[in-house]
């Protein structure tokens, strides 16, 4: 590492800020709270600014280049979103303010709820869940509440296809359900015969990621949903891949009962290190009363001169709160801006370009990399990062070598049903030149894998730190550079 830690840069007595003499009497801190055992770093302002600025240049981010991290939809986040979220009327309000003083905020939340309903084809939306995984958890709690309200208490299992997001089985297990794994057929769809064999009156529901983690649209989705419903179960749609469907089809129309949105994927709010996620949950008509709350509703209809009065309401059989206050409001503002900037036509364009970009990359790479489920893909596809005639090369080596070509690596080793998986999602925000550079880098790396494999095995070569020892990192959990003495 070329940059020392902030503790190593520290020098005793160095100060960042000098305070003026106070114009009020001094009150000393109570002596029992005064310690000199805390080794706080002592630095000047330029020391601090330069340290963190240098560190930030080591980082890779969506403002720097392509981030083809499959399943994560790392699209570019428009800066106008940030402008809007920083408007004082949004940024300086407090969730404990009286509702009548934040009517603009509530109007925005209400409209966003309405838009998400329209986009997804569902009857009700709660904006509260903090992110996708919590949205899933909320959805499964709604499934439980629905069966319980009907006195149907023997349903203890949830079906999860092996092409689902990894959070789906985790969510079901965390909600107390037994997870039953469903295989994928040779075309990448849910295996309908296997589904038929496991459906009975103990199935609470099925969680379906569509498009799935192979980047494929399950062509049997309507049939899958019908079969689960016939057995008395509900179907949860993982909306993380909604990017590929916007304006083209609506999960509600396909027969799903519940889904979550990832505002931080589909609707361009920042994620990764950039900000909290946001995972609103939508439900069909028969589940509206179970939604977590409070939810914004119109308390008093408006007139021609007066806007309506908005307020918070709790659905009658609500599963309760799943998050303090009302969710991540700043993210709702950004998503609202994004949706209003695009409009219905623009949203459809997003899906079309996300799918076009992924298929263009797939077409450029399919002669070089094996594509185990090779058909027209949606917004992402999965390649194998291995060749029989390049022994010893693994997906991880390809991922590390891509860093030398100035690209963020794709997701690797997921989904588990593909050997040495490289899961590539370019998103709609990349132009053809960028996609070509990325494809050429991957083709070049495939040549290197055969001709000079050590280039891959020792990669990355051009980064501030070389390849990290992942085994050591996983086994020796030292998470801070300074450990208190007592």
């Amino acid at each position, binding site marked *: 590492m070329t940059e020392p830690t902030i503790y190593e840069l520290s020098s005793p007595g160095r100060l960042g800020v000098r305070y003026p003499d106070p114009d009020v009497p001094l009150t000393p801190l109570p002596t029992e709270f005064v310690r000199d055992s805390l080794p706080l770093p002592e630095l000047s302002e330029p020391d601090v600014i330069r340290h963190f600025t240098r560190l930030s240049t080591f980082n890779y981010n969506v403002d720097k280049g392509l981030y083809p991290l499959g399943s994560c939809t790392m699209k570019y986040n428009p800066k106008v979103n940030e402008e809007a979220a920083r408007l004082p009327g949004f940024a300086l309000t407090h969730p404990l303010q009286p509702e009548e003083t934040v009517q603009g905020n509530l109007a925005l939340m209400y409209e966003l709820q309405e838009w998400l309903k329209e986009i997804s084809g569902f009857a009700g939306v709660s904006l509260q869940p903090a992110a996708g995984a919590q949205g899933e958890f909320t959805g499964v709690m709604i499934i439980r509440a629905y069966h319980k309200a009907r006195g149907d208490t023997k349903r203890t299992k949830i079906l999860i296809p092996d092409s689902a997001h990894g959070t789906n089985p985790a969510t079901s297990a965390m909600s107390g359900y037994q997870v039953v794994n469903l295989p994928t057929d040779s075309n990448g769809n849910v295996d309908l015969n296997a589904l038929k064999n496991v459906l009975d009156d103990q199935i609470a529901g099925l969680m379906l990621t569509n498009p799935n983690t192979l980047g494929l649209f399950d062509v049997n989705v309507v049939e899958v949903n019908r079969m689960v419903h016939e057995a008395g179960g509900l179907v949860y749609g993982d909306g993380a891949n909604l990017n590929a469907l916007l304006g083209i089809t609506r999960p509600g129309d396909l027969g799903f009962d519940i889904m979550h949105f990832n505002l931080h994927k589909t609707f361009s709010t920042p994620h990764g290190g950039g900000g909290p996620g946001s995972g609103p949950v939508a439900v069909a008509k028969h589940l509206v009363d179970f939604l977590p709350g409070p939810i914004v509703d119109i308390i008093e209809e408006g007139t021609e001169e007066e806007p309506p009065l908005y307020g918070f309401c709790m659905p009658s059989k609500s599963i309760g709160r799943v998050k303090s206050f009302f969710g991540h409001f700043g993210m709702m503002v950004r998503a609202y801006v994004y949706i209003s900037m695009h409009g219905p036509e623009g949203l459809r364009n997003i899906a079309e370009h996300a799918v076009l970009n992924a298929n263009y990359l797939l077409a450029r790479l399919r002669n070089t990399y094996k594509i185990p489920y090779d058909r027209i893909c949606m917004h992402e596809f999965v390649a194998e990062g291995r060749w029989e005639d390049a022994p010893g090369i*693994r997906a*991880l080596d390809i991922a590390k070598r891509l860093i030398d070509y100035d690209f963020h690596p794709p997701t*690797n*080793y997921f989904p588990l049903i593909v*050997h040495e998986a490289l899961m590539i999602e370019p998103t709609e925000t990349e132009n053809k030149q960028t996609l070509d550079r990325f494809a050429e880098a991957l083709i070049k790396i495939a040549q290197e894998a055969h001709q000079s494999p050590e280039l891959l095995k020792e990669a990355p070569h051009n980064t501030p730190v070389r390849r990290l020892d*992942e*085994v050591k990192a996983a*086994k020796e959990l030292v998470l801070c550079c300074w450990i208190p003495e007592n």
Partner: protein
Amino acid sequence: MNTPTNLKYSKTDEWVNVDGNIATIGISDYAQDQLSDIVFVEIVVAVGDTVKPGDTLASLESVKAAADVNCPVSGKVVEINEALAQTPEVVNSDPYGKAWMVKVELANTSELETLMDASSYEKYCAERSH
């Protein structure tokens, strides 16, 4: 790939070594290679537990995935390899030796007939590699 011929193998990549009525269970060389570097092993059964085929015996974590070790036989757990928690890397270096996981006193030896011998298991692994 190393596949000792004196062992039996399950479809979920466990090996079984039978000595009298005691079955010793671990994961195959193929399985450890697929998982890559193992960083965590937790045996989730205890001595005295009754187990049946499909029960989870242990959880493994590697740098790329997490996996369960399934029980291929029925019986009673008579010994577990407690040292593995401290030395998970032996699953990679010595899957058929130091990395044995659980010993089970067999309740039903006819179950062993449902397991594969080394040559069928090698064929089964080769099929899955394509």
